[in-house]
């Protein structure tokens, strides 16, 4: 009955934690997961999200046991390269 929610990079720092667990009955979509973990703050437009390590959209459905993640745009590779 639980959904694990992870945060990365600058969002992790802003949220003050890297992971939290919420009740799956309170969240049917990623947007609803966000509302719950972010105290109704508007979902930032450039935020990326994943369900079970696949990229997803705010409307994507989440299910009990899922791992949801929110993170800023990715910046891998060399710096400047």
């Amino acid at each position, binding site marked *: 009955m639980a959904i694990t929610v992870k945060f*990365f990079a600058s969002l992790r720092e802003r949220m003050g934690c890297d992971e939290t667990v919420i009740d799956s009955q309170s969240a049917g979509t990623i947007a609803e997961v966000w509302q719950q973990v972010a105290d109704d703050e508007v979902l930032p437009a450039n935020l990326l999200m994943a369900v079970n390590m696949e990229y997803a959209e705010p409307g994507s459905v989440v299910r009990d046991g899922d791992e949801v993640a929110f993170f800023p745009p990715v910046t891998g*590779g*060399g710096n400047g390269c």
Partner: protein
Amino acid sequence: MAVEIRGGAFEPWQELASFQQRMSAVSGKYGATAVFVGTMRDFNEGDAVRGMFLEHYPQMTEKHLEMIAKEAVQRWELLDVLIIHRVGEICPDDPIVLVAAWTAHRAAAFEAARYLIDELKSRAPFWKKESLPEGERWVTGNTPAD
């Protein structure tokens, strides 16, 4: 095909030498190898950079790098492919990323290597935080491909 995340320093040319030694199954079949190495610069956007922390999303990173590698193998009929990406604390002049593609012909090798690094930079969940003399900052967007 190999995709590796490294927590410590790696030496790209040594990695290529030892990876290629294990490629005996395609020995004599590849005519072209294209390689790209991204190295940490000591400056970015006009500022001096002292060091960098590279965060990632364990498992999701490997999963997406493997997807990217498989796409390239299929699209360009690669004989082999290697991706290595560093995470954690990184110093200037350290290699950060290595991609390599082995093919029969050269155009495919170049295109595949370019695809690997471009897709890695846009899809793989890595984030860079730079240490400047004035403090730290998250890199907010990757340099465009051209």
